[in-house]
């Protein structure tokens, strides 16, 4: 990677004509933006340039401000004692908290964070776990504030916020420790037993009988902890399955283990027949190894998504004496009055005081139809407000919050992809067939040659164990999901991997997706005699409760005069505009075409948003928005995968065409309402197109649900994230094509794995039934077939992720 073209800090390409150098490790290094330069400078200034020497992965690109205002407020909220009580343990003035950090890529990041924190006054302890992205922080609350420490981290480009599902963490930790110990016992014991076995088989041919008996007894001694302790999870799983009248692959596994052990112990005790202690130990070891890898991969994927997706909002808008303030959920009490803007999720249970809106309760009820909420009705935590702002009074805080978080997590974890359950059901029938074959084999050989019957049956049980079959899909899926999270795509449904591989059309929303969505007002044109400051005050009064990006831009305007407009009867018309009454007269603000019909005026359609009164246009607003840095690259890559990019936007056709031209997208459709967007996607699907939708806004919600696969931008609205199959956590658009490549690679690996596992089992069955396969060869065959499947799964998307930097 050439130094001149790429940023030294984040390795992103440097925009043309941009030159900015920072001296790192005694040489000037070029940076791609002010953000990266600021981070690099602060790293060098603190004498931490070692970070660059030892890091193994590049840093996240810092776009825009290092610490946005919203984050600053969130940090300062965390200093409040009541809020801290929720996530800290305190000992005198010392506080300890577990935080999740975004942006940790490798060990060097962890070192950077720890060293920086230790340089701060009042930090007692800071430990970063680079695998799970958690920071354990202990500090003196008298000498320093948590917000100071968090800001120090933010200046380095890491965002740390309280992590509160400690319970889940503890359970995993316990599980992992358990597996590791079982694995260790099995490994060490297997090594020892293998040594005795080698001696028995090949070592001394003319070994005296008492020596043979001795070897067998020590083998029995070493194999016993393995069979009793290490293999315990298999028996437990088998018992659970049997109790619920089901069969899983642990049933034949447990059966084989117990039968082989009892028979070998019998042979040892009575000094007859063969012993297979080494086979048993190895079998347990390999099986445990596969399970352990699966557990690790699954946890990693979960840990990253838990860090990234925060399900219920942490702050609400509280109305106190007519003013609106943003406060953490933890600091509100029952009886408070809140304002719930459209697109926002309820954090608490409440009664509607005023307003008339629809909410989506699908989180609680599974019902997607919007439910109308009028004054006096109860609205529950997790519900998403759809169209009008609502004034609500809090009735319940703690219970509902916890209940719905647990519910959502469980839903996400319990959701199993259709293909995984398909393989599971095959495995179930396979196990049944296998048990029948094993019993028939046992009966047949019992009459033919009673001495061999037991060992042949055992070989059948072991060799044909459908472990590889059961592992084939889940391991590939797990690795695929964790690869997705490595590139910053968090899957909300496992199905995302299946669907992404099939898409042929990629539909982009414009504002907030291809552009930053941080629109600012570039120009205001005044058409009436009303004072300019008053015009802006009126516009702000109408837009105050809207979450639309254009409304946000208008709200950012300064109304120099301290003239407070008080708007009443505000009505939001989704995707079109807002009307309301101010000082007795009715005002309308919104898209030019809509305002024309509402007010019977003719507007200059050059303006994106027009403010009008009955019969009179008052002002026109123009906006500017910047393209996301990697949008051209992302479109190019989508084309390289021979997929069709499409631009689908609610914005005016003129703006959409201009953007499509810059990005050379052929199909660009503007002036779309949520309904017509939805219609377009349905129509494409009717023509057998598989659509991937990428969006961020409230108006994208329905399309995101309708599309075959969908991704939401992380800083988009709650409703978009809730509707999409996945979330782009780092808003890098180039991740989209990588995600598609990863899912394609996952699909092909799953096919390879299934073919191999089925092929192996079918091939080995006749050999085992006919008694040509001794149990120890069966064990080697079974273990290696499982290991091949697991190792093959690890190849998923490796190339895609490796080429990322």
């Amino acid at each position, binding site marked *: 990677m050439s130094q001149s073209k790429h940023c030294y800090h984040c390795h992103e390409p440097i925009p043309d004509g941009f030159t900015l150098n920072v001296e790192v490790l005694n040489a000037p290094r070029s940076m791609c933006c002010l953000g990266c330069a600021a981070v690099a400078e602060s790293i060098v200034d603190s004498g931490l340039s*070692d970070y660059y*020497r*030892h890091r*193994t992965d590049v840093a996240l690109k810092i776009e825009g401000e290092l610490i946005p205002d919203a984050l600053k407020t969130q940090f300062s909220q965390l200093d409040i004692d009541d809020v801290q009580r929720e996530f800290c343990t305190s000992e005198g003035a010392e506080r300890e908290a577990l935080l999740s950090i975004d942006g940790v890529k*490798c*060990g*060097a990041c*962890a*070192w950077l964070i*720890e*060293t920086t924190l*230790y*340089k701060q006054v009042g*930090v*007692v*302890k800071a430990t*970063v*776990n*680079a*695998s*799970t992205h958690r920071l354990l922080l202990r500090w003196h609350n008298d000498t320093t504030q948590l917000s100071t420490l968090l800001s120090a981290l933010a200046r380095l480009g890491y965002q740390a916020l309280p992590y509160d599902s400690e319970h889940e963490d503890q359970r995993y*930790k316990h599980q992992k*420790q358990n597996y*590791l*110990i079982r694995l*260790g*016992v099995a490994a*060490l*014991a297997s*090594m*020892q037993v293998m040594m*005795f076995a080698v001696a028995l088989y090949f070592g*001394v041919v003319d070994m*005296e009988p008492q*020596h043979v008996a*001795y070897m067998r007894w*020590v083998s029995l*001694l*070493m194999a016993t902890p393995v069979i009793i302790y290490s293999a315990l999870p298999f028996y437990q799983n088998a018992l659970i399955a049997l109790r619920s009248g089901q069969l899983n692959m642990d049933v034949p596994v447990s059966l084989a283990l117990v039968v082989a052990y009892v028979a070998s112990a019998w042979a040892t005790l009575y000094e007859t027949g063969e012993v297979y202690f080494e086979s048993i130990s190895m079998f347990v070891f390999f099986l445990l190894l596969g399970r352990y890898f699966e557990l690790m991969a699954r946890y990693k994927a979960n840990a990253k998504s838990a860090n990234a997706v925060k399900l219920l909002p942490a702050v609400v808008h509280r109305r106190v004496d007519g003013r609106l303030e943003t406060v953490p959920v933890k600091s509100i009490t029952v009886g408070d009055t809140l304002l719930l803007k459209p697109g926002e999720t309820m954090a608490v249970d409440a009664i509607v005081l005023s307003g008339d809106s629809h909410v989506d309760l699908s989180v609680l009820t599974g019902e997607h139809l919007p439910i109308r909420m009028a004054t006096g009705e109860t609205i529950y935590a997790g519900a998403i407000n759809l169209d009008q702002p609502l004034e609500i009074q809090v009735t319940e805080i703690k219970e509902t919050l916890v209940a719905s978080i647990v519910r959502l997590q469980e839903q996400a974890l319990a959701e199993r992809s259709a293909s995984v359950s398909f393989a599971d059901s095959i495995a179930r029938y396979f196990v049944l067939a296998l048990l029948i074959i094993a019993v028939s084999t046992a009966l047949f050989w019992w009459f033919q040659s009673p001495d061999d019957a037991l060992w042949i049956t055992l070989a059948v049980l072991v060799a044909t164990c459908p472990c590889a079959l059961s592992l084939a899909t889940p391991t590939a899926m797990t690795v695929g999901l964790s690869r997705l999270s490595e590139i910053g795509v968090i899957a909300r449904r496992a199905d995302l991997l299946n669907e992404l591989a099939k898409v042929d059309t990629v539909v982009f929303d414009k504002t907030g997706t291809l552009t930053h969505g941080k629109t600012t007002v570039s120009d205001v044109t005044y058409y009436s005699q009303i004072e300019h400051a008053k015009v802006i005050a009126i516009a702000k009064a109408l837009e105050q409760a809207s979450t639309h990006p254009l409304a946000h831009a208008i709200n950012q305007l300064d109304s120099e005069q301290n003239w407070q407009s008080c708007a009443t009867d505000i009505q939001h018309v989704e995707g079109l505009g807002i009307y309301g009454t101010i000082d007795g007269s009715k005002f309308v603000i919104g898209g030019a075409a809509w305002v024309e019909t509402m007010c019977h005026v003719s507007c200059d359609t050059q303006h994106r948003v027009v403010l009008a009164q009955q019969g009179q246009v008052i002002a026109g607003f123009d906006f500017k928005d910047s393209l996301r840095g990697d949008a051209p690259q992302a479109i190019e890559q989508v084309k390289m995968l021979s997929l069709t990019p499409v631009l689908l936007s609610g914005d005016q056709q003129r703006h959409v065409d201009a953007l499509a031209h810059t990005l050379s997208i052929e199909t660009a459709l503007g002036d779309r309402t949520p309904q017509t967007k939805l219609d377009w996607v349905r129509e494409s699907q009717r023509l057998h197109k598989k659509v991937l939708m990428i969006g961020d806004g409230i108006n994208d919600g329905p399309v995101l649900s309708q599309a075959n696969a969908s991704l939401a931008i992380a800083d988009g609205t709650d409703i978009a994230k809730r509707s999409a199959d996945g979330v782009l956590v780092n808003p890098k658009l180039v991740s989209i094509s990588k995600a598609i490549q990863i899912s394609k690679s996952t699909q092909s690996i799953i096919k390879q794995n299934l073919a191999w596992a089925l092929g192996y089992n079918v091939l080995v069955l006749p050999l085992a039934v006919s008694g040509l396969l001794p149990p120890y060869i069966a064990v080697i065959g079974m273990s290696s077939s499982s290991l091949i499947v697991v190792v093959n799964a690890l190849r998923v998307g490796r190339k895609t992720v490796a080429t990322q930097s």
Partner: protein
Amino acid sequence: MSIIYILIPIAIIFVFIAIGIFIWAVKTQQFDDLERHGTSVLFDSENQTKRKETNRIDE
């Protein structure tokens, strides 16, 4: 050959010691974060000095 009556039990004792050490290592969280500690040795030991300083302040 009778030496095996002594040597094998000794070997087994070693294995049990190894298992014991392994269990201790797992329980004291030595395997919690394999990514991070692979690189930590590369950096200078400022952390330790700082840690000592804070300890002194505590006392």
